[in-house]
């Protein structure tokens, strides 16, 4: 038995090797300094919004370290599908038998976990993508993601001023934020493209939230709706 000294929970040796590797990466404590943190900004394209019925079509992700993205180091995977929802094709453009090289769901998840390890995950409306991936893991008998997670929609909201003159409960879409930050919207609705746009937004947000470079990771986690 290998004991995780921080979680005080054993890593189940019956789980596949890749999961154990992933789980073991969390034994290392994350630095508190934001510039030393490895963020993985990701996005999933799915067949729809139903956590039980719908499936992940693709996952795209980029890694941010110290305000830089290595383009050669991004992550993109398309998953084989049994379910097909013609309704969402017009959004993401991924049709069933397209020429993307596709991998089985489990292999896609494995690649994703190998890629993220113990990074802090970032996504726009992160709750949705997080849950989608957790459901997929669950289908293969795997536990939930162990990563810390930040939501750019929540972070953006925290930068808005406190006044009754704007609707404080408004939920901001990726498009609206990109417009406000003057970011071109190419490649919208491909997982990689959205992940990249989200990553640029995330770096701009950090710049605005962390003006004096005094914030630590703890402060970031504290930003809530």
């Amino acid at each position, binding site marked *: 038995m290998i004991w995780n000294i921080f979680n005080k929970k054993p890593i189940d040796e019956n789980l596949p090797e890749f999961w154990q590797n992933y789980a073991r990466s969390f034994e290392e404590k994350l630095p508190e300094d934001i510039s030393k943190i490895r963020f993985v900004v990701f996005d999933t394209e799915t067949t729809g919004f139903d956590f039980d019925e719908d499936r992940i079509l693709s996952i795209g992700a980029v890694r941010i370290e110290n*305000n830089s993205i290595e*383009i*050669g180091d991004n992550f993109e995977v398309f998953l084989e599908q049994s379910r097909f929802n013609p309704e969402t094709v017009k959004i993401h453009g991924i049709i069933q038998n397209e020429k993307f090289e596709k991998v089985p769901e489990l292999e896609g998840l494995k690649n994703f976990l190998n890629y993220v390890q113990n990074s802090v995950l970032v996504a726009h409306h992160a709750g949705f993508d997080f849950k989608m991936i957790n459901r997929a893991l669950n289908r293969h008998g795997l536990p939930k993601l162990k990563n810390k997670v930040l939501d750019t929609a929540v972070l953006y909201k925290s930068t808005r001023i406190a006044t*009754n003159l704007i609707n404080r409960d408004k939920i901001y879409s990726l498009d609206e934020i990109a417009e406000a930050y003057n970011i071109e919207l190419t*490649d919208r609705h491909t997982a990689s493209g959205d992940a990249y746009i989200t990553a640029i937004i995330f770096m*701009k947000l950090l710049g605005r939230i962390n003006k*004096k470079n005094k914030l630590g990771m703890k402060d970031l986690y504290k930003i809530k709706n």
Partner: protein
Amino acid sequence: MTNSIAIRIADFLADFPPFSLLHRAELDKIASEIKVMYFEQGQTIFSKNEKVHEYFYIVQKGAVDLQKADNGQEPETIDKCDEGDVFGLRPLFAKENYQINAITDEESVIYAIPLNVFKPYTISNSQVGNFLIESFASNTRNPYSNEHRGKLIADEDDISLKKEAHFELQPIPIVKKMVTVSPETSIQKAATLISKRKVGSVIVVEDKKPVGIVTDVDFRELVATGRFTIQDSIAEIMNSPVICYSKNLTISQAQLTMMKHNINHLCITKDGTPNTKVKGIVSEHDIIVSQGNNPAVLMKAINRASSTKKLKRIRNKIMILLNGYLKSNIPLSHVSNIIFELNDATIKRTIKRCIDKMDSPPPAKFAWMSLGSQGRKEQLLHTDQDNALVFEDVPEEKLAETRAYFLKLATKVTKRLNIIGYEFCPAEMMARNPKYCLSLSEWKEQFSEWVTTSGNDEILLCQIFFDFDISYGEVKLTNSVSDHIFEILKGNSNFLNRLAAQALRNPSPLGFFRQFLVEQDGEKKDLFDIKKRGIMPLTDAARLLILEHRVKNISNTSERFEKLAQLEPNNKEIYKACAYSSRVMIKFRTKQGLKNKDNGRFINLEDLSKEDKIKLKRCFKTIKEIQELIKVRFQTTYYL
């Protein structure tokens, strides 16, 4: 596996040399190895004497200043890179450390291109190699457009950045074409000469030495008024002694001298005293025209600008101009008028261009209103854009369609203004917001509602919207709105009292021991908020008092106080002091903002000299006095 992000990056690179010289497959390969870096404003990418990086850089978004920093001297910007410009090329050619600083001038996204990936192409493709060598050697980013470099408009006498940085140290333009006369010459004869030679002044000489000077102003003030006749001798009306300098006078010296003596001509003599031969004359007008960044040239450039990007470049030049003005200590009222006009022209031009871009001409007459600091002509630095739109009343069935048109127009305009450098208003007080894009009668109703409801939010809205200024369109519409406001305020002392209470909510920022009150918590802790604690109390006071006097069309705080000084002679002194304090604090904020490349709102007290602190404290005393006056005049206690 495809890398769709890399493809987009390659698309971007393909538009700019040296990448445009490469094949698509090569670009895709380079793009997939790139590092995308984000920098906040004012961050260092590399600095002098730093070991060279394994990358060179291209600006994707934003702007980077390249600075020469000689030991112990303030760094001087020698080049400015924006979208598509490459920099940091040294490591491609040499192993030694960087010789210049690269600092972001605004928030930027930079692509870092790894040398080991790119270097093979500099060897295999001689064009690429040559481009980079030329760029590097000439310190010019883009030798392909050498003749257009640094020029706003191809044919204007624009000056390169290098010279602009030395705004105040340029040699003065001396005009040798001048008119000299002897002291006995008649006024009529001298005037005839001036008019024939098309100059603005005449120098009175004795034995080739200057004894006096007469300018256009003197003819107007002393002759046309009848105080002297045209038969009198010129010596009667000349200004004497003449202020003389030698020819190595700098522009800032010349401007200072003119300011100090309240004159607009200087005489240049051989040794700089009135005892030697006259060599030429320097006029304020000539100095201004000689500047590449003179307002007239910039104005022309704005009105000709055919893209938002060009307008953005011009904005940068306006900032250089502003910096130069402040360094030369030109009075703020002057400066803010010029900067206001240039800002205003930029907004007008942007709106004009957006109307042209619409599918059809505007379906109704409209006016674009600037609110807040731009409306008050106090916007010197880039601050937020606050604006609103009013269109003439249309039949009920056309209303939705008409509003849709103007909302679309406003969305285009605000987006472009944002690119130029006016941040979006965080409270969405912009014409693209359906709440602030209304027909004339809707606006009237809106103001009536705000004034009668007058909860705290409504008071806040009134404070913002009462300071509007028309930027574009039909003056009749905005005048009609103003008239309505005065109409509904008539006899509404309740509203004015509430406004007065609001004007007192930020008390004079001096503590009990005459120390500065600084921010207590948050990220601005221990910084002094000059906007909230210094400028706003005066702005609020001026607005309140001018509304009480029902004065229309003056929205500038300092001008409002000047007007109040006329209207209430018994309070003249305090109003004059307020006008002065308002200018001082705006200047302070502007200087801070230029120094720190931000909006100048928060001041670190440790940065202030003793003299500055005393100056500010004097302003705060004025705030205290005007607030006392308001307390006595209005019944505010009920609302405080």
